[in-house]
């Protein structure tokens, strides 16, 4: 029998709802559950306010019609469905299109300060696949505004509780830098969650009848990605292990424009707003190649010549839009083809240039973090020269199979999922800006769904000592691994690295049956090696130990992606090209 290496007893808490994830989706869910009168724990792997949502740049899509009054939920719905190749769950797309304006306005009542139109309303910008200017934004740091507003909303609610009850954490408590490793169950129903403090390695068990997964994406399974380290697919894996199912996992979005140089920032996102605000894509021959890649379904909406495309920036009623603004999968594939055909840029990308369209001071104002990012990380001044860009793994459309109205995970009573971890909303390809709105719309619905579920419940499930013991044992495993020879023990960093190489080359933008089968075999052998990865050192803030868990999740998620891709119909279904 193993004894816990943490050396201290398991901390135990009881809540009505446990929200795993403090990105946009998790925080919005927590606010909703709190406002329904429930006690909520918010758990996150990083510090409060650092979740991946903070990186979102371009904006949040909502058909408020502030810039073009022809916009409305039906147009947004149509664009979303068309972008997702009609593989979206239509009910989710409908709820999303209908409710996102209210969710954005609500942020304003909590103190958010979006950029304004001339008449003082929330300004909206153009983005790929959206028929009208639709993205509410704050320069190119919209995600920061969203997360800060939600964070401050949580603080506001805590301040109220402090005034009223003398205890700020009576209803909402944030457990930061705590990783959940298991969803606990009691007789088929969710009864809580188990995890460890990153700081000390100490173990924590939460007893709660409802758990909301809001754990974000999976990007760290790929080598070239725009995602932060948190994107290790924990929620996808937790749901699967708890008996839930994942859908659409073959649909992984490769954003067309990531940085390609220098190598250490390869993959870092170059926001789509660069194209929305007039940036054009050219190859090494100086040609605007996107005109050659307009698919039949989009011919009525996209200009097939430069003159018309250029006129569109000033007159959108009478001209079709530039093909640089096609949905992401189209642009990513086009760039991929240009590079493969030998028309790539110096460092293996293509050129993206906004310097010829806008004056320097306007660029600095409209795209401040892009200016900053290129200046500081690549010594490139984007007001003077073109950027070099190429595709980067950005977002996973696939995720937990949920009921659209309540966000309840299908097949696991008490489990809910919202945000990037949930599947269905975006079909085979997500439009830019549709994630931030998704977080708010379905975060709120998950909070409400969980609250309703808890209130209707007669007898609460409990967490047994046995369940805790088994969760403890798995947590201890990486420390107890013994290998006969030192050379047999594995380094988790090396395995992670190999997994990233593998997914990138075999499960990337273009996939073949042979490569997918090959990938599955290799994932199997990596898993066998990962089972031997020993955590060195102690439990306190030990990244090597943390990685052994993240690695298990990434392996599982990568396997799901490869399997789904293999089982899908074999035709090009947008983002997933086989």
């Amino acid at each position, binding site marked *: 029998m193993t004894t816990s290496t943490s050396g201290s007893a398991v901390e135990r808490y009881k809540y009505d709802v446990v929200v795993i994830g403090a990105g946009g989706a998790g925080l919005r869910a927590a606010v909703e559950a709190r406002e329904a009168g429930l006690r909520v724990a918010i758990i996150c792997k*990083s*510090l*409060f*306010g*650092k979740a*991946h949502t*903070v*990186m979102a740049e371009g904006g949040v899509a909502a058909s*408020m019609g502030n810039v073009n009054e022809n916009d409305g939920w039906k147009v947004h719905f149509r664009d979303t469905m068309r972008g997702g190749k009609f593989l979206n769950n239509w009910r989710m797309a409908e709820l999303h299109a209908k409710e996102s304006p209210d969710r954005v*306005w609500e942020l*304003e*009542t*909590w*103190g958010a*300060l*979006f*950029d*304004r139109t001339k*008449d*003082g*309303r929330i*300004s909206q910008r153009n983005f790929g696949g959206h028929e009208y200017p639709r993205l509410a934004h*704050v320069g190119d*740091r919209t995600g*920061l505004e969203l997360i*800060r507003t939600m964070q*401050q909303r949580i*603080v*506001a609610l805590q*301040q109220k509780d*402090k005034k009223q009850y003398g205890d*700020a954490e009576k209803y909402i408590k944030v457990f930061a830098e705590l990783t959940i490793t298991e969803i606990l169950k009691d007789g088929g129903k969710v009864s809580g969650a188990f995890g460890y403090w990153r*700081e000390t390695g100490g173990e924590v068990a939460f007893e709660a009848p409802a758990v909301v997964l809001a754990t974000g994406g999976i990007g760290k399974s790929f080598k070239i990605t725009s995602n*932060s*380290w*948190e994107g290790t697919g924990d929620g996808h894996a937790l749901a699967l292990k708890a008996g839930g199912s994942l859908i659409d996992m073959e649909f992984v979005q490769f954003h067309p424009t990531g940085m390609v*140089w*220098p*190598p*250490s*920032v390869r993959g*870092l*996102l170059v926001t789509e707003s660069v194209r929305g605000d007039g940036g054009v894509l050219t190859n090494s021959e100086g040609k605007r190649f996107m005109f050659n890649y307009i698919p039949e379904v989009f011919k009525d909406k996209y200009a097939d010549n430069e003159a018309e495309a250029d006129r569109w920036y000033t007159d959108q009623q009478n001209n079709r839009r530039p093909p640089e603004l096609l949905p992401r999968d189209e642009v990513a594939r086009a760039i991929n083809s240009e590079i493969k055909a030998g028309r790539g840029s110096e460092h293996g990308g293509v050129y993206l240039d906004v310097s010829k369209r806008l004056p320097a001071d306007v660029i600095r104002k409209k795209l401040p*973090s892009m200016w900053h*990012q290129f200046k*500081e*990380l*690549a010594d490139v001044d984007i007001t003077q020269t073109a950027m070099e860009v190429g595709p980067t793994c950005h977002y996973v459309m696939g995720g937990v199979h949920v009921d659209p109205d309540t966000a309840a995970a299908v097949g696991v009573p008490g489990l809910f999922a919202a945000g990037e971890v949930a599947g269905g909303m975006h079909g085979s390809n997500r439009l830019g800006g549709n994630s931030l709105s998704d977080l708010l719309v379905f975060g709120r619905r998950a909070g409400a769904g969980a609250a309703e579920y808890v209130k209707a419940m007669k007898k609460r499930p409990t967490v047994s000592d046995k369940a805790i013991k088994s969760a403890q044992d798995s947590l201890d495993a990486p420390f107890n691994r013994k290998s006969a020879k030192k050379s047999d023990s594995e*380094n988790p*960093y090396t395995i992670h*690295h190999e997994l990233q190489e593998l997914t990138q080359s075999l499960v990337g933008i273009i996939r073949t049956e042979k490569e997918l089968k090959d990938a599955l075999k290799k994932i199997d052998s990596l898993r066998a090696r990962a089972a031997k990865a020993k955590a*060195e*050192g*102690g439990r*306190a*803030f*030990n*990244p*090597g*130990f943390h990685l052994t868990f993240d690695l298990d999740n990434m392996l599982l998620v990568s396997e799901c992606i490869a399997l789904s891709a293999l089982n899908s119909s074999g035709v090009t279904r947008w983002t997933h090209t086989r």
Partner: protein
Amino acid sequence: MARKVKMRIWRGDSKSGGFKEVTVPANEGEVVLDVIHRVQATEMSDLAVRWNCKAGKCGSCSMEINGKPRLACMTRMNSFEEGETITVTPLRAFPVIRDLVTDVSFNYKKAMEVDAYEHPEELKPGQARMQQVDVERSQEFRKCIECFLCQDTCHVIRDHEENKKSFAGPRFFIRMAELDMHPLDKLRNRKRKAQEEHGLGMCNITKCCTEVCPEHIRITDNAIIPMKERVVDEKYDPIRWLGSKIRKREGL
């Protein structure tokens, strides 16, 4: 082309610690965080360091590099001399947890003490009208990524644990200024509270906070000084006070 760099990394916990030296390769275009990750992957698998985005957007990777508060993910290796030893230490103003990770909970406590935004009830969602010029002042402060480098560098608390109780620090002065300049916020006494409850008076405008801010927020010029000046106005000039109230309202 890889070159070798010598890193001096502080390792330890709240009880004890010291410097460990390692020499690792550094490639073209890399930042300090890349090199720390290489150390982690090859030499010290349990080296504790916080980071998230590696893009200067989340404010997690704050540490002191050659004694200066910096973001490790935005400090490029080519900003050092060839052959220069790079010393990395945890933020000095906060208690060490392990290696480069510190306990920054002080900042979350201070955040809890700043009165939240108050929206005018009569303004229903979607009804707010504000001009871009009026939101821009507060937007500058909302760029803050909460890296807490300004908090770390401010001499009022850097070596004076005893001041922490009564001093909110530059990060929260800009938060108060942001709300004070917010065209819709209803709360009227923010400047005075900054002075009386959050220790604005202890700041003597050295501007060190502005210098380290990776978001280039002009903390002192645009937040602290105007608040200090207007506290004076507000205290002694009732007509000016009325004026500011009217100005704030006209955006509605």
